[in-house]
């Protein structure tokens, strides 16, 4: 059977499965859809049935890079500064503290675990450890959105969680983007190899210069179809440039999304266009991520299980410490971090980006850890968020939207 036909059958199967099974589950048990596509990809990939071969997965690598770039742009488009400055500063303090603590703690602990389990130098262990830290930092807003929508109310905790998931995403993307700049191995096609700092500047430069140029390019374009063509071209170009240089497409496209939404008068149309193909690309990304799962490193089970435990404990304790340090424990409650346990599209995107990177160390472990974390937490994210939100939403007065929930309904 041809590769394309298989892919089409896979996607149709996934979609129908999602429609029949997960809509019912979502209504009945507050399960957020997304993980089912991942699971289906794993089932049809080389590790289980082999219907999608590694060659097919490799052939669609450019499409995956495009999906990564699109996710980055959607996340960046959340950061509309005039809306952000209306949010209380304390919410950002809590969110940044929680995100940075999660990143540092998970990276440190996982680095130690990898050193203990595998014959690695400390310098080499830093790379997969920080990648795992970035994955662990990402948290999905979908569970929070499901609960607050089902109640039809918003409160301070919802606002804090929206800020926290957005900041988690930004911190995860920046950390991962810088990591790939640092571990970059320069091919011998240039006379002098750029340093890690120069690679980081190049990555950020693609985003900033691209954002400025695309702002001028898209300026004044309000017709959705034409805007779609130009914006798709811009994201494909930026993703392609980053991927070509061996950098992560997530960071430059996040910058482009943020620049466009802050500098363009047609920001509403830009967000509409980004949302138009976000879902199809997200589903395709999940399926291919599942199909790309093919662990070759022996003994991946223990580090992956340890990662899941470390993330759980770190996320809860980082959230508690952040709230306590900023004096918000009374308002948020000791267990508010439970609502940040859910993971989705961004965690998959980072894991897949690491898996596709040529110079990645222990890519299988990092990728498997990311996928398993999404599979487990996505199913429970709405219930975990519900446990935090339900008592407080019933008690506290409603507040206005933060404008940081553009990824509701999706993974991250």
């Amino acid at each position, binding site marked *: 059977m041809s590769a394309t036909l298989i892919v089409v059958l896979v996607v149709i199967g996934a979609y129908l499965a999602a429609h029949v099974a997960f809509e019912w589950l979502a209504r009945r048990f507050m399960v957020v859809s997304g993980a089912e596509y991942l699971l289906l990809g794993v089932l049809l990939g080389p590790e289980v049935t082999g219907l999608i071969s590694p060659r097919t997965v490799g052939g669609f690598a450019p499409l995956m890079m495009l999906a990564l770039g699109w996710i980055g742009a959607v996340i960046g488009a959340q950061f509309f500064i005039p809306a952000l400055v209306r949010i209380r500063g304390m919410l950002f303090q809590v969110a940044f503290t929680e995100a940075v603590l999660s990143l540092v703690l998970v990276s440190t602990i996982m680095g130690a675990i990898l050193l203990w389990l595998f014959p690695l130098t400390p310098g080499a262990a830093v790379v997969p450890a920080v990648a795992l830290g970035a994955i662990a930092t990402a948290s999905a807003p979908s569970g929070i959105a499901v609960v607050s929508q089902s109640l039809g109310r918003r409160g301070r905790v919802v606002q804090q969680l929206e800020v926290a998931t957005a900041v988690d995403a930004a911190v995860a993307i920046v950390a991962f983007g810088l990591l790939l700049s640092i571990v970059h191995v320069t091919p011998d096609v240039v006379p002098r190899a750029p340093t890690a700092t120069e690679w980081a500047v190049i990555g950020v430069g693609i985003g900033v210069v691209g954002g400025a*140029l695309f702002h001028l390019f898209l300026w004044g374009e309000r017709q959705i179809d034409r805007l779609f063509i130009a914006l798709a071209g811009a994201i494909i170009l930026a993703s392609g440039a980053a991927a070509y240089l061996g950098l992560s497409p997530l960071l430059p496209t996040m910058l482009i999304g943020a620049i466009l939404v802050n500098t363009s008068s047609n920001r509403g149309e830009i967000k509409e266009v980004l949302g138009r193909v976000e879902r199809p690309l997200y589903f395709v990304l999940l399926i291919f991520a599942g199909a790309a799962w093919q662990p070759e490193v022996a003994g991946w089970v223990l580090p992956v299980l340890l990662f899941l435990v470390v993330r759980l404990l770190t996320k809860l304790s980082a959230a508690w410490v952040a709230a306590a340090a900023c004096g918000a424990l009374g308002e948020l409650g000791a267990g508010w971090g439970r609502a940040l346990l859910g993971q989705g599209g961004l965690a998959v995107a980072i894991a897949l980006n690491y898996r596709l990177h040529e110079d990645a160390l222990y890519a299988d472990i990092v990728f498997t850890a990311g996928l398993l974390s999404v599979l487990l937490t996505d199913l429970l994210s709405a219930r975990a968020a519900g446990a935090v939100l339900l008592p407080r939403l019933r008690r506290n007065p409603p507040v206005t939207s933060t404008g940081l929930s553009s990824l509701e309904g999706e993974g991250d």
Partner: protein
Amino acid sequence: MRRLLILGLLFGGMVLILPLASGGQGSRTLLTFGFLILAAYTVGEIAASLGLPKIVGYLVAGVLFGPSVLATVRPEGVARLAPVSDLAIALIAFLAGAELKWDEVRERGVLLLRIMTAELAITFIALAATVWFLQDALPFLRDAPPASVAAAAILFAAIAIVHSPAVTMALLTETGARGPVAKTTLGVVLLADVAVVLFFSAAMAVARAIAPPEGVVATASVGLIIWEILGALVVGGLLGVAVAAYLRFVGRELLLFAVLVAFFGLEIARLAHVEVLLTLLMAGFITENVSPHGDDLREALERSAAPIFVVFFALSGAKIHLPDIIPLLPLVVPIAAVRAGAIWAGTRLGARWGGAEPAERRLVWMGLVSQAGVAIGLAAIVAEAYGALGEQIRNLLLALIAVNETIGPILFRRALARGGEAEA
């Protein structure tokens, strides 16, 4: 002007980036593909400001940044993007089928059939005769025996009569024209698309009989040709019923679903060895006419049609190899003129025979000049079957298609404007 300047800066940035990595071919393709989309978009807007159809701009951008001029997109990049091109043409075929309403087909079927018959017959005879008379001017036919010249003339004419559903749909989407000239042109183009497949198969059989190719390929049986057509109708019909069922029972994520249907239709048609375009045309036609929700899918497709046309025509432009075409232009321009004249005569005759409105009699021929993907595909078959002679015929055809692909949209847009169905 602003966009052109930014495009220049992006091009400069890309030139700076390229030496920094040897990169995977896939990511380089993605990089250049993004640039090609922006370039096509910009040149398309410039074309529109000059009163030309946007697709002419997309084609020009494809030629300019394609392998034969600036080589921003390399030949291997164009080859890698072939599935994107295939998907675009499948979506266009599905959309074209969905534009046909059963009531209109029943009402105007005889008229369309008469226009098509007269137009195809006169154009075929005129073009075959032109090649025959031009044999001394064509280097590859100068010393050929009469049988080979006759075979070449038949094959050339059988492909040169082909129209372009893609250009027709692109112009109708761009202008929003839905009047009698638009509908009759679309009807004739789609009907002719079915007829030329049959006609080409017959022409190939005749050519093989009078001048058998040296040591190549078995002749396709009549059964296979019939299966290619009838099978496409059956497979497309079943696909259309399945799509209608989806719309009835699920009816969500229509854009994603439309893309999947196009992919699926392509693969099924290839596996079943049936005509791809006809399969998707039929699927679109059945969906639109069987399902009460067919309009929803058609609207979703129409919303995504603009990017599809940009991609398809920019890639079509990138496939045009100027160094092969330019030397042939002195020969191709008179052939293109003969073809256009024959289309004019045939269409007028057919329209009069079918009792068409005066505007249709005067203007429909202008929508039939365009050529694109289908003709290129058939030219490749001839090249494969006839070796060196086939290659020469293909080059001549590609040059003719390049001319018609550029002039055709301009003429069709003018026809729609004159008929009062689009802005001038």
